[in-house]
């Protein structure tokens, strides 16, 4: 027979009446008990209070322990399952239960987070301090060794409750839902970017500067012919009728190109294909096609 009274852990697990909602487990008693040798060390001494006939299937215990979020959660559970106030935490008893749990975990070779062991050590230390002989009067400055632990437990319990409440809040995609209303029939007019003249001119200035650099560094210049330039000027004039004199020059070509363009214009003028006009003194020179096809 399995004696569940001897160990609170066994009692809890085997009774299946846990108040801890996630921890409810009913584990059938095994047919054969196993002899197990407790090996957990607490404060340098072996912890040996486990009933020798206790056997819990490792998988089940694993599930059980995974429902705890850490040592504080486990401690809270141990306190709450006895309907105890955190303020009145019976350190010795809780320590025994707690250590029994982690001893079990250790025996079953579960991965035991270091935090659980740290807490075991802390509990053992508090327990030993409380057991100190009475005659040592404790001064006002010295805090009750339980106080810090109680504060942590309270804070953790508050957060645990808050997390549960948070989970209950109506949540998007779970409780409330975003709407999908068709807007494809809405015609969207996309505004066009605005451009200011100074931006265009600035851009052009940079082009010219780049072109200037190009003509300075370019060793092989494009071969230019006056005839070619003449025909291009003609094409231009045939389309526009008139043209700024300065526009007939391609500055990228450098001085040589400008000379070619100038020669082309002079040639065209001499041949009577274009007229060069100046509307007023010191005004801009304009070139216009002398042959009007239409």
């Amino acid at each position, binding site marked *: 027979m399995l004696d569940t009274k001897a160990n609170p852990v066994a009692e809890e697990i085997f009774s299946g009446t846990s108040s801890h909602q996630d921890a409810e487990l009913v584990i059938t008693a095994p047919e054969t008990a196993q002899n197990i040798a407790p090996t957990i060390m607490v404060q340098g001494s072996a912890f040996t209070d486990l009933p020798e006939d206790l056997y819990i299937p490792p998988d089940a215990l694993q599930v059980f322990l995974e429902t705890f*979020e*850490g*040592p*504080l*959660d486990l401690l809270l559970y141990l306190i709450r399952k006895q309907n105890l*106030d*955190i*303020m*009145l*935490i*019976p*350190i*010795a*008893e809780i320590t025994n239960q707690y250590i029994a749990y982690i001893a079990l975990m250790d025996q079953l070779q579960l991965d035991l*987070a270091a*935090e659980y062991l740290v*807490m075991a050590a802390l509990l053992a230390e508090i*327990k030993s301090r*409380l*057991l100190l002989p009475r005659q040592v009067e*404790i001064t006002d400055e010295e*805090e*009750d060794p*339980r*106080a*810090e632990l*109680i*504060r*942590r437990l*309270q*804070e*953790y*319990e*508050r*957060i*645990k*409750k*808050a*997390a*549960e*409440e*948070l*989970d209950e*809040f*109506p*949540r*998007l*995609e*779970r*409780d*409330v*839902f*975003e*709407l999908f*209303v068709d*807007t494809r029939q*809405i015609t969207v007019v996309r505004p066009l970017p605005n451009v200011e003249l100074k931006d265009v001119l600035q851009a052009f200035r940079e082009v010219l500067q780049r072109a200037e650099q190009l003509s300075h560094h370019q060793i092989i210049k494009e071969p230019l012919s006056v005839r070619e330039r003449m025909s291009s000027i003609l094409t231009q004039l045939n389309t526009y009728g008139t043209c700024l004199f300065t526009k007939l020059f391609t500055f990228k070509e450098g001085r040589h190109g400008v000379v070619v363009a100038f020669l082309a214009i002079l040639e065209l003028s001499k041949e009577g294909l274009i007229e060069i006009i100046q509307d007023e003194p010191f005004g801009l020179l304009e070139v216009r096609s002398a042959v009007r096809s239409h």
Partner: protein
Amino acid sequence: MKLKHIVEALLFASDKPMSLKALQEVFPELEQPQSADLETALLELTEDYDSHSIELKKVASGYRFQVREQMSPWVARLFEEKPARYSRALLETLAIIAYRQPVTRAEIEDIRGVVVSSNIIRTLMEREWIKIVAHKEVPGRPGLYATTKEFLDHFNLSSLAQLPTLQEIQDVNLPLKEVEPLSQATREQSETEQSSLQETPNPETDGAETQA
């Protein structure tokens, strides 16, 4: 066209909540409605939808229409994917950040008593529910986490103030007596202590402060 109808169309067409400012900015500069007029329109709209399956809701980043919570049993069947369930570890971490922000990872770990996995922080960051708002001036300059508007939006909240207040913390003021083992006598004693505590509760005060 009544302002109410324009606001209605805008809220339905927008794929995210719209603030008063966002609503105003839809209008040409000289025709922008007053905030008060917008609020009246929003109030009228809210009432218009009283008997509908959808509601006009104010969340942190603005107003949005949403399907009412009581419709979720039907609506949930529309979606093949089950809504994400979050682990206790994630929810506790989120709750700590919500209530204790700005807070470092080490502080979260102190409260929970266990290491916070990087996965949890990453998930919360990816969902844009938390963000790093500053770095604490201690060695390592750890990030200080805080919740975001997206967090509030997702949890149907318009501000952090809508979160329930945390349980009150009882004053830790223990008489240094051994209460072990749990015998009948100590149990009675405990009850006495408890009742005396209940007579003079000091919910606001953290025990550490009164003793310090």
